[in-house]
């Protein structure tokens, strides 16, 4: 597929180009900052954008802002945000923006070449992929939620894997379980959290994340955005 990269470090930019081309993809543009991004996106029309969070000139959250801009102008364009550090607050904002597929991964993950390429491909196909670190943060922030307290340790592990965007098959492989018991766990989790248990891969991730996210900081458990999670998970019937 055709990929656009926006990353300020020359070393990493070149590394990413090499990696992706090695994986059989085409890098249509590699930008050092987000200034030319919108123009490049409209001319090159890529299938996926990879953005770094900290970009010149201010090195704070330019990448996140660029991602939001892309969400507004081209909501269906898959975006992968890479960062030296992952922050649940950025992830929550991206999820709240409700666009197409998106990924949010630590830059370190690039070192696992095979897995990284696979993540990129899954995002391009419409999946949502979150770094385990982000999910751990979301879980930490929600750990005082009453409904989260009801989950068993095993269910919590499954929920983490679910929120990272893994398929049932991959969760089963990860936790050495049968796919049937993974399905059982997921059904139990969705029941306890009051989410619509549909089978649409990406939707269930969003449902789980929507439950985990804590937009706007300290929200009382009772004020959690139930409406949001049910509309996102939808009803498959």
């Amino acid at each position, binding site marked *: 597929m055709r990929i656009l990269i926006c990353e300020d470090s020359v070393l990493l930019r070149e590394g990413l180009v090499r990696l992706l081309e090695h994986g059989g993809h085409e890098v249509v543009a590699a930008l050092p900052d987000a200034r030319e991004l919108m123009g490049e996106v409209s001319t090159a029309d890529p299938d996926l954008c990879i953005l770094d969070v900290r970009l010149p000139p201010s090195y704070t959250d330019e990448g996140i802002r660029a991602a939001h801009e892309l969400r507004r102008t081209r909501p269906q364009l898959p975006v992968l945000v890479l960062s030296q*550090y992952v922050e649940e607050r950025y992830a929550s904002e991206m999820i709240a923006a409700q666009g197409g597929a998106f990924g949010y991964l630590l830059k370190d993950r690039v070192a696992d070449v095979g897995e990284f390429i696979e993540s990129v491909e899954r995002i391009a196909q419409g999946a949502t992929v979150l770094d385990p670190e982000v999910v751990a943060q979301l879980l930490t922030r929600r750990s005082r939620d009453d409904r989260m307290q009801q989950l068993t340790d095993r269910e919590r592990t499954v929920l983490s894997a679910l929120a990272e965007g893994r398929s049932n098959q991959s969760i089963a492989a990860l936790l050495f379980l049968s796919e049937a018991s993974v399905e059982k766990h997921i059904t139990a989790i969705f029941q306890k959290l009051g989410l619509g248990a549909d089978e649409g891969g990406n939707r269930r991730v969003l449902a789980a994340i929507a439950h985990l996210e804590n937009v706007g900081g300290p929200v009382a458990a009772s004020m959690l955005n139930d409406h949001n999670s049910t509309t996102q998970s939808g009803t498959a019937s």
Partner: protein
Amino acid sequence: MSAPAGRPAPTAVPYAQQQPPQVPQAAQHGPQAPQRPAQHPTVPQAAKQPREARQGPPFRIALTILQLAAIGPVGSMLVTTLFGSFGLGIGLSLLLGVGLLLLVALVYAVFGVAWFESQRISGLYGIAVPTIVWQPQTEPGFKAWFKALCQQAINGRMWRSVANFVIASLMGMGVLWLAQGFVHGLISMFNTTSSVLQPGIVGMLLCGGAIVGLALLHRIVSVAILGSAVAEEQLETQVRVTSQQREGAVRAADVERTRIERDLHDGVQPRLVSVAMTLGLAQQKIETDPAGAKELVAEAHTSTKAAITELRQLARGIYASVLDDRGLDAALSALAARSHIPVQLDVRLADRYERTAEAAIYFAIAESLTNAAKHSRASECRVMVRERSDGMLWARVEDNGIGNARVVAGGGLDGIMNRVLAAGGTTRLDSPQGGPTTLEVSVPCAF
């Protein structure tokens, strides 16, 4: 509601019911070992206001006159004795050691006079003259005592107070002399019965007026000489607090730098060296033993990833850029999630605060969690952060570990305390043997 004392049960108390104490106090920790508070002054304390003389001006003038009359002869004798002893001390010190002893005693005597005078003036006129205190010794031992004595001997405030006493003595003599005139006038008034305008009455009026005048003058002079010390005292306190903050900032930076250097030196550097070695070995083996070389490369790959993670966590503990663009609450998520001990976060904050305050609290929490992971053997940590109504950002980190945390120079707690002190805040550590450990920090956060 106060903090739960003792070990938190595995099923945590719902934090929502806990309110931060208005002013976190030792008393709120239930029956525990004695406190070892580590308090730093933050606000310059104004000198204590003495009890204002509640009586009106006439009474105060009368009191002044009486005091002056008493100080007159006593003070004159005392001042004469002091100066006499000074001469004697100087003279004898050239001959014998006795003179030196006399001079030492003289410093104490002068100090006593100065102390008495400052107390007298603050009592009489109700101005907050700071109490004159003996120069503190920097360390035990004779040398330090002698140094303090010498410093006390040339203390300006003491001598100003003594000067006021000397002036009061002279005025006192004047008052006595005028009182004599007054009495003379009184006697002559009774002795003569002729005219209305007798010299006796005139003398009486003149002397009485002069006495009152002296009393008023005494007040003006005393307030001018000693009153200036009030402002000076406040400035001194402010300077002391400011320099303490500066020292805290410098020390905190030093401690932090040392820690970063040590973390890099002990953690990441050797790891990278071993990666380079492993790759070097793989390079040599690649022709002869491709399978072995592959294994070595995989090993190097794993080590590299570990080094990257370590670097990330190290950098994250020093500073988080999310702190700048999303604030303290957002920045704490990653801290809590990467902690080795499970952390319960309870943060209720408005959006943003002053950067220094946010950074100091962030650093304190980051360091506390690192410390707890290293030493406490705790199974759970709780972090509470609130904005207090007195304009302070307040955080409490508790663990259910073994306690007995101590501030060691250059250690984590030392770094926290200095950093918080530099931000103008206070730290309180409570860590009895057997736990639990509680660290509370407050930092002013006016925004």
